[in-house]
């Protein structure tokens, strides 16, 4: 039995060391670069401390009991007593968890409410509104006030609250910038909101955490926090140099693909706001065919943008001849989602 005890002791210490060292490592959640992420981290650290306490007590008690009351050669005729429980003890180990949960609940609820708003100290600064539209498999950022749009990267001024308005053109995604804030889902025909502030200029990774098909692993974007001056300059440059996006180009953009970075001097909000429950659909079912296996039916969607000229391109109910043809198109438009990024 020595082995199991040794194992448990070493396991406990490994976990303890790993968890304790969590405070001074380079894991992104433990290195917040803005007040929202910092508030969440404070909550996380508090919970780790309390949970570590629970773990140590249970592990200790467990090790002690298992070791002390193990069967040995010299206690083979020891017959354990008949014991049914103890009301006092059972009340104690009901009340203690309750106290721990209460201790966790208070800061949790406070933080939940706090991160739903503009962080403290920034209430006087007017937030910069950025509309985020996720599509398969790219992130589209629209700056309605500045009248520009970027794809797969977003530049923000430091020390200013950013008000992200999140929606999706198709599947559900989750918008996450671990260094600056937590995450929120993006859903078609609905809008969610996420506030954050960046402390310093710097580049941070943003990604999708909600699985949405073949191109999911590549759905990352860069958040570049700049000084106000640099940011103003960037806006100016974009407005002067970036091309205008057209409706056709936008429709093409929403097809399932990886695009790399793009910049435009107008926004798609001019013709569609995907968070509007009555907006048209931009779905292209025929492009999601996996290229193997039975194709199945595809239903026409009356709400689709493709209906605008009165002829629906994909009225091919499981027509195999046509599917084959579409499939080769799909290969092209996927643009190498198998080849890594």
């Amino acid at each position: 039995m020595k082995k199991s005890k040794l194992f448990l002791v070493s396991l406990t210490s490994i976990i303890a060391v790993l968890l304790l060292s969590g405070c001074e490592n380079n894991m992104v959640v433990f290195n917040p670069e803005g007040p929202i992420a910092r508030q969440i981290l404070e909550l996380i650290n508090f919970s780790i401390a309390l949970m570590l306490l629970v773990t140590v007590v249970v592990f200790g008690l467990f090790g002690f009991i298992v070791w002390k009351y193990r069967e040995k050669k010299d206690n083979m005729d020891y017959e354990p007593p008949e014991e049914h429980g103890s009301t006092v003890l059972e009340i104690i180990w009901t009340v203690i968890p309750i106290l721990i949960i209460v201790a966790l609940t208070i800061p949790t609820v406070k933080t939940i409410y706090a991160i739903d708003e503009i962080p403290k100290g920034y209430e006087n600064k007017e937030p910069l509104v950025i509309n985020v539209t996720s599509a398969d498999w790219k992130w589209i950022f629209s700056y309605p006030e500045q009248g520009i749009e970027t794809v797969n990267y977003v530049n923000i001024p430091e020390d200013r609250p950013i008000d992200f308005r999140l929606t999706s053109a198709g599947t559900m995604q989750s918008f996450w910038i671990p260094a600056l804030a937590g995450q929120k889902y993006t859903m078609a025909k609905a809008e969610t909101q996420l506030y954050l502030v960046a402390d310093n200029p710097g580049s941070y990774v943003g990604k999708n955490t909600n699985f949405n098909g073949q191109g999911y692993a590549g759905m990352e974007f860069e958040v570049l926090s700049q000084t106000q001056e640099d940011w103003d300059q960037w806006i100016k440059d974009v407005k002067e140099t970036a091309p205008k996006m057209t409706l056709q180009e936008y429709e093409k953009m929403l097809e399932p693909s990886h695009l790399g970075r793009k910049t435009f001097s107008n926004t798609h909000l001019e013709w569609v706001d995907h968070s509007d429950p009555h907006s048209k659909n931009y779905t292209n079912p025929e492009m999601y065919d996996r290229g193997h296996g039975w194709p199945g039916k595809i239903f026409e969607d009356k709400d689709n943008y493709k209906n605008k000229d009165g002829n629906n391109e994909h009225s091919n109910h499981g027509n195999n001849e046509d599917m084959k043809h579409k499939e080769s198109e799909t290969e092209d438009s996927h643009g190498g989602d198998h080849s890594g990024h």
Partner: protein
Amino acid sequence: MGIKWDEFFVTGDPLIFASQIGIALTLVGALAGLTYFKKWNYLWSEWFTTVDHKKIGIMYILLGVVMFFRGGIDGLMMKGQTAVPENEFLNAQHYNEVFTTHGVIMILFVAMPLLIGLMNFVIPLQIGARDVAFPQLNALSFWLTVSGAALFNISFIIGGSPDAGWTSYFPLAGKEFSPGIGNNFYAVALQIAGAGTLMTGINFVVTVLKMRTKGMTLMKMPMFTWTSFITSIIIVASFPIFTVALALMTFDRTFGTHFFTISGGGMDMLWANLFWLWGHPEVYIVVLPAFGMLSDIISTFARKTLYGYKSMVISIVMISVLSMLVWVHHFFTMGNSAGVNSFFSITTMAIAIPTGVKVFNWLFTMRKGRIKFTTAMLWALAFVPNFVIGGVTGVMLAMAAADYQYHNTLFLVAHFHYVLIPGVVFPIFAGLYFWWPKMFGYMLNEKIGKWHFWLFVVGFNVTFMPMFFLGLDGAVRRAYTYSAETGFGPLMMISAVGSVILAAGFAALVYNIYWSARNADRNIGNDPWDARTLEWATATPVQHYNFASLPEVTKLDAFWHMKKNNELQPLTEDEIEEIHLPSNTWIPIYMGVIFGISGFLLVFEWTIAAGIAALGILAGLAFRSFDYDEGFHVHKDEIFETESKWRKSAKKGVKNHVS
């Protein structure tokens, strides 16, 4: 229908091609072997048509073990793919199919059949009954589970696997974004298997309420019976939700309705709500019976009554109530109001309270005991520290604000594996080692068992511990690859190595079953562990009628007290009465097959053919209602003969094995 065979069979992937050949060869081999050794008749009359809860239980366990292979290989493939950055072993599509099937199979076709199998075998014996309340329904439950499992498993060679995750969130799982038929397999196969599970739930609620032997009040039931009873109630409460959700999914995918799609006014989050309204209780459906097994095993090998029996019962009832009130914690990040997130944070954290009570009660059951480290007990012991890690990280995840950083990352993946493996798989292994002698009349080898134990436990920790840190460093779940700059590489590699050790542990179990079946001692008596509950008062292996005369219970741990007070009287000839038992029937297996066929046709959206095949279901029901077979009686002489035989050898066995 216009079948194009190259689309019907999945082609183009060498891995899948190899498994197609493998499956074909295995099938041919099995059929030829059965024919050559003339085993068809034996299988049909002894197993396929049986209504005996013990045999059904064993078949459930067999199904679970076979599916464990499939799910385990999926897991190894995922670990192999992510072991190094930008690996090209699997492509995105294949990886998506693999993690989807891994999740579904492990939860629904491994955990559930293994637990329901053990419940089937043990519960009627523990409550001193001759069978479950509805033996034929029980067989039907089993065959529907097999039917669902078979349908789900053929998807990767015929038609294409589901690939939208085991949660199959809409709109991704809808026709707009998953136009093939892969996700139809999900909807239809789980519907069929789910129907079987729901019937099991009903069956066990009635069994526990109505079939208990004389004197066994609710508060004298062994803890495994209690937890299985509560589990059955959760099944009855939650599976209908899943049934409805899957039906709506089938309508959306097959008939073009708009319940969950984004077009036509559908609501994708409705699916998420319905799914988790079932899916969260489902977690407790698999964990609670496992808790019950642990209680029985820990008290047996510590040689003590379960500590705080009443508070254990109260805790499981509380857990079952709370399990229905926490589902929103699966989508804290969907933009709920702060009030909603706070409410569900609190209800979720509250589950830690009854769970904590249980952990302390288990610890105090061992205190002042004499702990015997059998393999079964080692599994039960390993549960405590490992499950505590899963539990405390669960509390961390329950804090909605903090969850904004953990959600959908590998931290979450690590957490639920730390709950489900120590909380479900360890107890199932414990239960297998513990009840194996009762099922088959010999014990599993303890030495190989310890290999199984250490490899599995070490492998498990090496696999999943790194994932906590990967998640905190921003690694998301379900991503088939990552770049070297992320720095995930080294920990991912450690995790992959761990999964190989884990697999070696499982291989040791399989070897143990093979070795013990050939070499283990058959003369072990009826009570090799010096156990406490009624199932050990019967012969080993148990006769088809369970108890010659039904035992009478006066106390908790009834069998233990009978032994202590020498109340185990030899059976006299005049005490024996004829025993009535139900006859075997072919209807359940027929129903399984016909459900499978109509399900298969429905998957392929051949709705008219599916409808015609479904008439066969009605035919089965009609036939059943005109079936007047009232079963048979076991003759007195036969009972007396078998009973005196095992009772004589039982005394010998006790001497040999109780130390």
